[in-house]
């Protein structure tokens, strides 16, 4: 009996967790999905054994950037070309702080500072936009211009006057010499997340940075699922669908957009911190126009209203882009964006999910003759 009740409470807890992760705002609300999800996570965890986690960890890091745009654009309807601004601010902040304090404590603080810095940058930009009455396509334009301004600004920081403490910003050459990512407290407990493989007990190759990126991506994805399926998520979606109507239900739309934009900025900055830590280097091209466009392509192709779509498309497209290399890849991506906007504006992942689960909306019910409101005027 005792074990029975214990397993019952276990089931209860599991069902509660599932309940929070599932809802109309995410794809994958079935047992089958979670089974597939577990298999995919295990496959990703096992991947470095067969393939090279070294380059794959980059895709996982960029998937966080994709998620940040999916949250901001797909869920609250703010098309931002500025996610790379917060990505870059995160990366540069991490670089400056970690170069000045290159021990475990300092690097940990640098990572936190990077995320906070990106969040603050997003909050500032968001405040002036949303409380200044900027809406719709003008938000897109302002974020795009911000990206270009950052690119121009960072590219001219070559002089020695652009040195913060020990860290030269380096102009177009970028900022080299960012220390390896070592998290913890110096002298107490710390671990260095090197991005190349190291042998664990001589049995198999082990890539600490890859697993850190995978864990952060997993936690972020699940956390965002909880968020978008929460009451706040419902309001975000309502703002996306019709902000004036949502205001008339008593919601402070500006505040909601600002909160989402700030969270999206912090998330992009987390991606930027990991990017800078992985490459031990960051340079102004992270603010370049083509790089600013990439998240929009990932999220459009994957399905902007789908967190899962953003992750899958980011990994797939970046895998493609880096294996093809060069300008050709960008041409293909541009064509891909056009094709998807014209032919499959919802993105590929929601489309596939719709095919798998049959028609999502039981439209046939509407033909019910007893339906209220169907009575004809006589």
């Amino acid at each position, binding site marked *: 009996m005792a074990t029975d009740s214990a397993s019952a409470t276990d089931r209860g807890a599991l069902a509660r967790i599932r309940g929070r992760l599932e809802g*109309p705002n995410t794809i994958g609300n079935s047992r089958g999905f979670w089974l597939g999800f577990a298999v995919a996570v295990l496959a990703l965890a096992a991947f470095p054994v067969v393939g090279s986690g070294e380059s794959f960890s980059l895709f996982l890091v960029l998937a966080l950037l994709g998620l940040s745009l999916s949250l901001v654009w797909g869920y609250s309807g703010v098309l931002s070309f500025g996610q790379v601004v917060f990505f870059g601010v995160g990366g540069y902040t991490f670089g400056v702080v970690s170069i000045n304090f290159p021990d475990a404590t300092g690097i940990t603080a640098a990572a936190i500072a990077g995320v906070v810095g990106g969040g603050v940058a997003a909050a500032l930009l968001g405040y002036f936009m949303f409380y200044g009455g900027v809406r719709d396509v003008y938000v897109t334009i302002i974020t795009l211009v911000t990206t270009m301004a950052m690119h121009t600004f960072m590219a001219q920081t070559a002089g020695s006057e652009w040195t913060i403490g020990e860290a030269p910003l380096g102009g177009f050459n970028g900022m080299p010499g960012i220390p390896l990512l070592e998290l913890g407290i110096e002298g107490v407990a710390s671990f260095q997340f090197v991005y190349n493989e190291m042998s664990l007990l001589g049995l198999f190759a082990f890539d600490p940075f890859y697993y850190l990126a995978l864990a952060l991506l997993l936690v972020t994805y699940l956390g965002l699922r909880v968020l978008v399926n929460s*009451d706040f998520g*419902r*309001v975000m*979606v*309502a703002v996306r*669908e*019709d902000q*004036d*109507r*949502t*205001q*008339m*239900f*008593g*919601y*402070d*739309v500006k505040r909601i957009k600002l909160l989402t934009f700030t969270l999206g900025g912090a998330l992009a900055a987390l991606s930027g911190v990991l990017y800078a830590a992985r490459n031990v280097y960051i340079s102004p091209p992270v603010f370049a126009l083509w790089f600013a466009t990439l998240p929009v392509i990932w999220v459009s192709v994957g399905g902007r209203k789908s967190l899962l779509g953003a992750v899958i498309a980011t990994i797939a497209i970046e895998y493609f882009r880096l294996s093809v290399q060069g300008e050709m890849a960008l041409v293909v991506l541009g064509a891909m964006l056009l094709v998807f906007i014209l032919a499959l504006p919802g993105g590929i992942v929601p489309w596939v999910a719709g095919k798998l689960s049959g028609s999502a*909306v*039981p*439209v046939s*019910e*509407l033909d019910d003759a007893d*339906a*209220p*409101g*169907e*009575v*004809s*005027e*006589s």
Partner: protein
Amino acid sequence: MSSETERSEVSKQASGETASSDAERSEASGSASDPASDPNVRETPAGKATGDRTDTLLQTDNLVKRFGGFTATDSVDFSVDEGELRCLIGPNGAGKSTLLKLIVGTLEPTAGHVYYDGQEITDMEPNERVQSGISMKFQVPSVYGDLSVRENARLPVQQLADGAERRRRVDEAIENAGLAGYEEVQASTLSHGQQQQLEIGMAASLDPDLLLLDEPVAGLSVDERTEIAERIRRLNREEGIAFIVIEHDTDFVGEIADSVTVLHRGDVFREGSIEEIESDPEVRRIYLGGEQ
């Protein structure tokens, strides 16, 4: 004629059952002229109301809205009492929708003031006005098309209740909209009438004290009109919600209204009972001359 007797029954019941303003209400609906047309009440902002017979819920003072050279509302002094069911009629372009938008705050007035529940709300954001008890259904049904009926119904309710109480209220709102069994249906696939019903339900589920409806029965069938008229009367009678309803259809207005305000060229032209308004030759003239 049948609609008139029905209406007077309604107003009797309303005066008996509205908890907040029972005594005043019976006196108000009993008296021949509407209290809102009493100059004492009309000219004074609600906070300093000298009208001792009724509690003024909403008051506009000299409200002006100009769009460039066009004056949409011209020094409108308009008031609604607690628990009152007021209809707003007038030819196209009379400023009805503009007045509603000024009250709810989606438009800013060029001049003048709006008072609600004794406080000036002229500079309040719309969402703050909603929080303080004003709710509105727009002219075009604007439910969230991509969301299910249940998600639509949850959105306003989630601010007020959690857990089982929330579920109960959501189910109740869906039930009252006549949409039981349609919970998981995408709202954009509902008929026009169902969307109107759902939206009225969503606006009413905020527990407002004042509900503004802009043409709630435009384009609906006779049966749907009857349903919505009954619903408005029930909300007014049972929950004491005051209404301002814009409607062109005088039959519908006669069916529901305690009193009627006629707007013409941006200002209040007449106020009174539907009988008074319908028999007024001047009102007939502006309708015939202005629109048809």
